């Protein structure tokens, strides 16, 4: 063990694998980074469950931030309890918890062995994709609260939010998959039974021929009435909105094919085209299913309720009492703990608030609030407990009202695609050809008229367009997904390509959320002075003080006397005989400076101003290069809720035409987007926090940036992993390629049809060759779209 402590390498925590920077705890021959991690190990060790550590190395998540002991006391409330449980009877209760920390096979193993830790748990089952654990427990032995606390004690704190209250779990719609399965089954069998027809059958075996034909007719019924209903409903829906989408001509083609085939079989004149019909329905359904593959672990529809706690502590006659969020009323007094969200606008009646609004407004520094000041819902308290008097109900609070306001968008999903427009022209041309054919045959040979017209309608179905579109979309969606850009649906690909103006949020989007880069400018400090400053800074909880303390390093053993903290201004105290002060320019120099730059901390020792610490936003890697590349192609804008400290740098990056707005409230952001749209621009907004929620909705395409996929993102059209933001320009290029691929595949399929018709008209094409060519042409379209979109993917270096 001695060997480890003297080793120059920072020991890694046995539980979570993080570097033990601040302190190293030794226990059981192992290193731990914090008491929390060690505790989890002890619990598992006691129960003989250390397999947890052998399945994956360092499987835990850091436990440095402690969870308040009575955090889950609201689960004792029967009303809240009953809204969360899935099912309950006399001897067992089923509950499903969302545990975002779940990430590896060890997690899976541990969460499915909960019954070994707590006898009251009957069983537990993990859904890894959704990061949910379904737990069945005996409520006579244990309680919901105890189960939640058990999960928390082993490092999987369940995330329970306001939106869980009485919300129905959405189930994935699998009807399309069933339809696809049925269509595939019927298609394959119809193909098989069509061969005798094509290969020719002895006239002696005519009965057999009829048998096969009727079997085909029978097998085509589920395709026609069940599988193809997908297209009927979609076509009918759009017709009701007086819109002709691509499904309408396809439905016509399917009906005409079916009617003509039924007629041929019943009249004994031919074998029909059931194989073609079921084949095309099968391929088109497959395209749809692939295209609509959703990312179940992500949600694109979140509103504020997903961020708010389900219950808070209310002070009732000096007694703390748990109350569900909707039951908060005006003039209630709420107790807000450290790291807890303020659920409603209120006035502070006790304690000092240090509120982190970064997620709500984009300001990167917590705001100090005194007793009697108003705090807005959505901020997170980052200090000791405070009490607030509610002055507005939850749904009426300033920020919740803003998030609730639906941006006036005219997004009609699925109906804006260029494919529908194209298919409309196609349909019009098709019907004119059919009408022309009908009149021509009517005067030449009326008995052949219906044959000719139906043939035209069958051959000229725009199904190739639908096929190439859905399969290209599916492939591009998957490729973008592999690069951690998740789109809400396929329409977003086109929106991404169509955008002609890009707006960025700053804090959390271009930069990482916190001030990370700190530089000291001024007279050099001695080691002794540095430690003295650090010791003073360590007394304060202000994030800038903490950063200075960390910079100064070891600050133990310094005596501090006369420490005073003036909120919003600075701190001072006597360290080793020297009076040291840290704080704003005004606090230290007594001079008002022109700029109100909150990210500079001045330092003085014995009344002499030595210099200042400058805090800078830390830009994400490769962001400056991305901005320079984009600036050549698009008008850019940065709309930030933060102060204008970075204006100069951004101006230099984005050029003189870029719009730079600072100190923007969430409503201003939305207004700015609307203003750009009024100029006829298609706006792409890229943001992260709830302060961008309105703007993300208003924009033609809103992309939410997420540090990791489990984080909560506001409602948006797409979710992008923060590390992948530098690839944004390539994502746009790939989306633009989408249209090219679809059109190319469509043109090729039209050529196919033309060649096919030419041969068919001359009577050189045998029915069997035609029947084989039909699925082959569909499959070749799939290969073309797949190959081309992969080619573009490689070209834009997207794996």
């Amino acid at each position: 063990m001695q060997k480890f402590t003297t080793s120059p390498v920072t020991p890694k925590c046995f539980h979570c694998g993080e570097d033990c920077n601040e302190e190293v705890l030794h226990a059981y021959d192992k290193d731990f980074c914090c008491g929390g991690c060690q505790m989890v190990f002890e619990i598992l060790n006691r129960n003989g469950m250390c397999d947890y550590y052998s399945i994956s190395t360092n499987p835990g998540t850091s436990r440095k931030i402690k969870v308040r002991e009575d955090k889950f006391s609201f689960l004792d409330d029967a009303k809240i309890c009953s809204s969360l449980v899935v099912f309950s009877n006399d001897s067992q209760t089923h509950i499903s918890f969302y545990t975002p920390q779940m990430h590896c096979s060890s997690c899976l193993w541990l969460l499915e062995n909960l019954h070994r830790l707590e006898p009251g748990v009957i069983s537990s089952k993990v859904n890894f994709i959704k990061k949910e654990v379904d737990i069945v427990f005996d409520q006579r032995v244990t309680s919901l609260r105890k189960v939640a606390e058990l999960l928390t004690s082993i490092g999987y704190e369940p995330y329970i939010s306001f939106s869980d209250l009485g919300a129905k779990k959405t189930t994935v719609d699998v009807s399309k998959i069933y339809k696809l399965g049925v269509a595939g089954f019927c298609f394959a069998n119809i193909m098989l039974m069509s061969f005798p027809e094509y290969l020719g059958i002895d006239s002696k075996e005519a009965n057999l021929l009829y048998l096969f034909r009727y079997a085909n007719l029978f097998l085509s019924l589920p395709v026609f009435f069940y599988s193809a209903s997908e297209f009927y409903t979609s076509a009918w829906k759009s017709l009701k909105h007086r819109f002709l989408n691509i499904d309408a001509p396809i439905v016509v083609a399917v009906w005409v094919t079916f009617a003509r085939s039924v007629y041929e079989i019943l009249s004994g004149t031919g074998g029909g085209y059931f194989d073609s019909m079921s084949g095309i329905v099968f391929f088109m359904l497959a395209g749809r299913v692939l295209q609509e593959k959703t990312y179940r672990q992500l949600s694109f529809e979140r509103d504020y309720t997903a961020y708010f706690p389900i219950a808070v502590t209310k002070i009732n006659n000096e007694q703390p009492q748990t109350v569900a969020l909707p039951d908060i009323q005006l003039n209630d007094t709420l107790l807000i703990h450290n790291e807890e969200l303020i659920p409603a606008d209120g006035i502070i009646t006790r304690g000092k608030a240090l509120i982190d609004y970064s997620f709500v407004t984009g300001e990167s520094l917590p705001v100090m609030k005194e007793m009697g000041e108003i705090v807005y819902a959505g901020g997170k308290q980052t200090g000791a407990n405070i009490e607030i008097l509610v002055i507005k109900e939850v749904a009426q609070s300033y920020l919740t009202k803003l998030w609730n306001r639906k941006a006036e968008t005219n997004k009609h999903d699925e109906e804006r695609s260029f494919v529908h427009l194209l298919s409309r022209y196609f349909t019009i041309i098709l019907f004119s050809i059919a009408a022309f054919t009908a009149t021509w045959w009517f005067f030449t040979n009326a008995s052949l008229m219906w044959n000719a017209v139906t043939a035209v309608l069958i051959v000229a179905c725009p199904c190739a367009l639908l096929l190439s579109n859905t399969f290209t979309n599916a492939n591009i969606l998957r490729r973008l997904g592999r690069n951690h850009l998740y789109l809400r649906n396929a329409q977003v690909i086109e929106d991404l390509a169509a955008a002609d103006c890009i707006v960025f949020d700053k804090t959390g989007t271009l930069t990482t959320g916190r001030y990370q880069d700190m530089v000291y400018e001024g007279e050099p400090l001695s080691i002794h002075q540095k430690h003295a400053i650090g010791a003073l800074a360590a007394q304060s909880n202000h994030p800038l003080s903490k950063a200075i303390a960390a910079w100064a390093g070891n600050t133990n053993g310094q005596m501090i006397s006369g420490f005073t903290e003036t909120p919003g201004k600075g701190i001072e105290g006597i360290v080793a005989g020297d009076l040291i002060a840290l704080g704003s320019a005004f606090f230290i120099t007594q001079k008002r400076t022109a700029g109100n730059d909150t990210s500079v901390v001045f330092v003085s020792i014995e009344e002499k101003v030595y210099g200042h610490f400058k805090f800078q936003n830390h830009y994400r890697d490769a962001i400056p290069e991305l901005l320079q590349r984009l600036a050549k192609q698009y008008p850019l804008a940065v709309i930030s809720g933060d102060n204008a400290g970075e204006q100069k740098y951004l101006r230099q990056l984005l050029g003189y035409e870029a719009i730079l707005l600072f100190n923007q409230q969430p409503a201003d952001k939305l207004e700015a987007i609307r203003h750009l749209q009024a100029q006829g621009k298609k706006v792409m907004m890229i943001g992260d926090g709830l302060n961008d929620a309105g703007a993300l909705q208003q924009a033609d395409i809103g992309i939410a940036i997420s540090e990791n996929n489990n984080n909560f993102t506001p409602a948006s059209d797409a979710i992008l992993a923060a590390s992948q933001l530098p690839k944004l320009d390539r994502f746009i290029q790939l989306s633009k390629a989408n249209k090219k691929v679809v059109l190319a595949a469509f043109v090729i399929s039209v050529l196919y049809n033309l060649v096919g018709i030419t041969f068919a008209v001359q009577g050189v094409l045998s029915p069997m060759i035609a029947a084989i060519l039909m699925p082959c042409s569909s499959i070749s379209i799939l290969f073309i779209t797949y190959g081309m979109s992969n080619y573009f993917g490689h070209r834009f270096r997207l794996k």
Partner: protein
Amino acid sequence: MSVIIILLIASISVAALFLAAFIWSVKNGQYEDEVAPAVRILFDDATLVSAQKTNLSTEDTGGQKK
């Protein structure tokens, strides 16, 4: 030629069996989580016993739910 009819019935029923299996697997939620089952099967013996127990009890409760 009745043999062809028998073969026909046989081939379609086999195919129908697979269709039924497919529908059952979708209904059973086998496509909802592609990661967990692959990992679960690799846990060693001591774990396997408890995992089986877990499965058993979930089935039990599933029955009672209905």
